[in-house]
């Protein structure tokens, strides 16, 4: 009897963990539009990590850590998108030692990507490895 209970628990655990994993994977790279518009950010809000200017149409800001497995892939996608498009800037912020920025932007995972419009207002937040098509859709919407 105990073996039956143990087997049921094991099967239920595998099932529940698989469901969590599927849910997590579906949300990776999905764009979450922000409910209310926040005040525009300035380049100084990134704690001295930004030495250029925001893009004339849009800016892609990626938060990374030194040991983040999907950060290099996201960096490739975003920097290529910015290079292909006039007026789109790309910024990679390393927050490995920047607790201030982790708190300021409520980062729960890296990479986290912010898409800013021409005024520096955050229009989209993307958690996890980005999907090229999702970023393009969002850029085309307002940039």
């Amino acid at each position, binding site marked *: 009897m*105990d*073996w039956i*209970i*143990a*087997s049921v*628990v*094991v099967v239920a*655990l*595998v099932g529940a*963990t*698989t469901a*969590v*994993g*599927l849910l*997590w*994977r579906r949300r990776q790279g999905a764009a979450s539009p922000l409910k209310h518009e926040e005040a525009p950010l300035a380049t100084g809000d990134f704690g001295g990590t930004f030495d250029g200017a925001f893009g004339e149409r849009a800016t892609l800001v990626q938060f990374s*850590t*030194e*040991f*983040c*497995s999907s950060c*290099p*892939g996201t960096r490739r996608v975003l920097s290529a998108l910015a290079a292909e498009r006039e007026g789109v800037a790309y910024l990679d912020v390393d*927050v*490995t*030692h*920047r*607790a*201030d920025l*982790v*708190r300021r932007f409520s*980062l*729960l*995972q*890296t990479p986290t990507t912010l898409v800013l419009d021409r005024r520096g207002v955050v229009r989209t937040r993307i958690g996890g490895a980005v999907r090229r098509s999702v970023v393009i859709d969002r850029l085309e919407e307002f940039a």
Partner: protein
Amino acid sequence: MIDPRSPRLGAGITAALLLITILLGIALDPAPGSGLLDRVLQPAFLLLTAISLLFLRGATAGVARHPYGLLFRALVRPRLGPPKELEDPRPPTFAQLVGFVVTAAGLVAAALGIPYAVPVAAGAAFVAAFLNAVFGYCIGCQLYLLLVRLRPTGRAA
């Protein structure tokens, strides 16, 4: 830098061993009032001890020198194509430390006579190992940011 498929293979083996631990731990949970020796000689307790020591090995020696890392390089890596990209060994090493802490806490609780401590700890470790093996979820990467947020000082040099 390491091949990211190496820690995932290790996580898969660990997840399978943890499932066996849970099965044995629930089916053969020692009766209340049994002696310390009875409790620590349970198959589930012994298996979780072995898993816990492997976590400790990974956390201290690094995942590359972990037995599963050696297994990957000797048997699996030669049969696969080159990896798309390499990965920093620190997140999987940190995850090994988390695994060690969780499993060691379960072993201590079980030795103290808390019922089902072994399967509960094995279950928690299983969730992380399974998500890592199957979905590539890296719990160390997320916990690291939480630790950064909790750290009182604003920035490190």
